[in-house]
């Protein structure tokens, strides 16, 4: 029995309902814990690959949880082994958000990758790094440090950490506008960007952001990993605006076009498209994104199936 099958057989299954993921804590080298969810294909399903999810930033971890869970389950049903990890200071993992730093997050993702690869020794298949929003930046940084090449699946990616940082800092301003503060009463020294520059943490929308994390994230750029063989990049731009504006219905944003050209130049095989969905990362109680799940699976489906059938795999 392969490790994957061992997990699948432990997973509680109710008839007619998809299997629940396996929930557990991974031990980090310092003994602290990271909460993980592992979605396994049913025994007998041809194994089509491994997926490591790189979650987005701050409150978007919560707003996207439902859509991500649905996608992960659909991927598992389609034959992918999907690993989700709450990074240091996020979700149910050890630490506060204030303790987090970009390199620590990358180390957590490497920990998750090592665990996933261990489970998958006998089943193989391509590795996909699935990044959502700022998670796309983590995925591209991570790809450069893994011992094996990876494909990338990016949902509504930020192309630079600086953009994500600016948007997050803007939440602070948004709070002030809503509180009715007038622009001239906002003291310059209170501005979060200046606090960070002075080495102070900032507190925004319930999150304490350390200067270290802000710095690490701001330095991150979406770019092809220079030290890995080029693979496949699936780029999905999400939102309702493309659909509501017929003139731009199939076009990607100019920023995306520019990025994609850079990946193609280095030999990456890119499939990029827009998918009409509600902006589910912006609100907690948004409805589902029914078109996104099949669009993602269809995009992955064109990937070659490297190995099939845990049942046909050589004995462990």
């Amino acid at each position, binding site marked *: 029995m392969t490790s994957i099958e061992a997990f699948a057989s432990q997973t509680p299954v109710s008839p007619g309902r998809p299997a629940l993921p396996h929930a557990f804590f991974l031990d980090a080298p310092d003994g602290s814990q990271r909460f993980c969810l592992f979605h396994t294909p049913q025994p007998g399903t041809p194994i089509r690959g491994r997926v490591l999810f790189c979650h987005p930033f701050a*409150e978007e971890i919560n*707003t996207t949880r439902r859509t991500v869970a649905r996608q992960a389950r659909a991927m598992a049903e389609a034959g992918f082994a999907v690993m989700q990890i709450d990074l240091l200071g996020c979700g149910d993992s050890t630490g506060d958000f204030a303790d987090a730093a970009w390199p620590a997050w990358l180390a957590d993702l490497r920990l998750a990758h090592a665990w996933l690869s261990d489970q998958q020794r006998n089943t193989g298949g391509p590795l996909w790094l699935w990044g959502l929003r700022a998670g796309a930046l983590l995925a591209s940084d991570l790809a450069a440090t893994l011992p094996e090449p990876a494909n990338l699946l990016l949902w509504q990616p930020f192309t630079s950490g600086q953009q994500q940082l600016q*948007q997050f800092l*803007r*939440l602070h*301003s*948004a*709070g*002030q*506008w*809503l*509180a*009715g*503060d*007038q*622009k001239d009463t*906002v003291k310059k020294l209170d501005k979060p960007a200046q606090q960070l520059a002075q080495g102070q943490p900032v507190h925004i*929308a319930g999150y304490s952001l350390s200067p270290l994390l802000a710095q690490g994230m701001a330095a991150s750029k979406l770019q092809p990993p220079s030290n890995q063989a080029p693979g496949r990049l699936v780029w999905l731009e999400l*939102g*309702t*605006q493309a659909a*509501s504006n017929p003139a731009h219905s199939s076009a990607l*944003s100019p920023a995306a076009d520019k990025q994609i050209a850079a990946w193609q130049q280095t030999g990456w095989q890119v499939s990029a498209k827009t998918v009409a969905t*509600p*902006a589910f990362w*912006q*609100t907690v109680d*948004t*409805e589902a994104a029914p078109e996104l799940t099949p669009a993602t699976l269809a995009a992955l489906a064109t990937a070659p199936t490297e190995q099939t059938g845990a049942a046909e795999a050589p004995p462990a």
Partner: protein
Amino acid sequence: MNVTDSVLRVLDDALNLQGRALAFDLNTPLLGALPELDSMAVLALITGLENQFGIGFQDDQLDGAAFATVGSLTALVEQALADAGA
């Protein structure tokens, strides 16, 4: 499509109003009247307007008054468009 219509579409998306915003007019109050308008939604709204119109707002150009009504929001966009064209 005029500016107000586009603003309403962005507003509808950003606040996930399921088409309700399309019936708003210039006098429809926003801030204080729409429970959906929290700081995450304001951020989504501003980012959506920037993407839709290809404009950029400076944070210190903005305050609560800009989000008072559909009219004040439209005026903000028209000002930014005029600044961009100038």
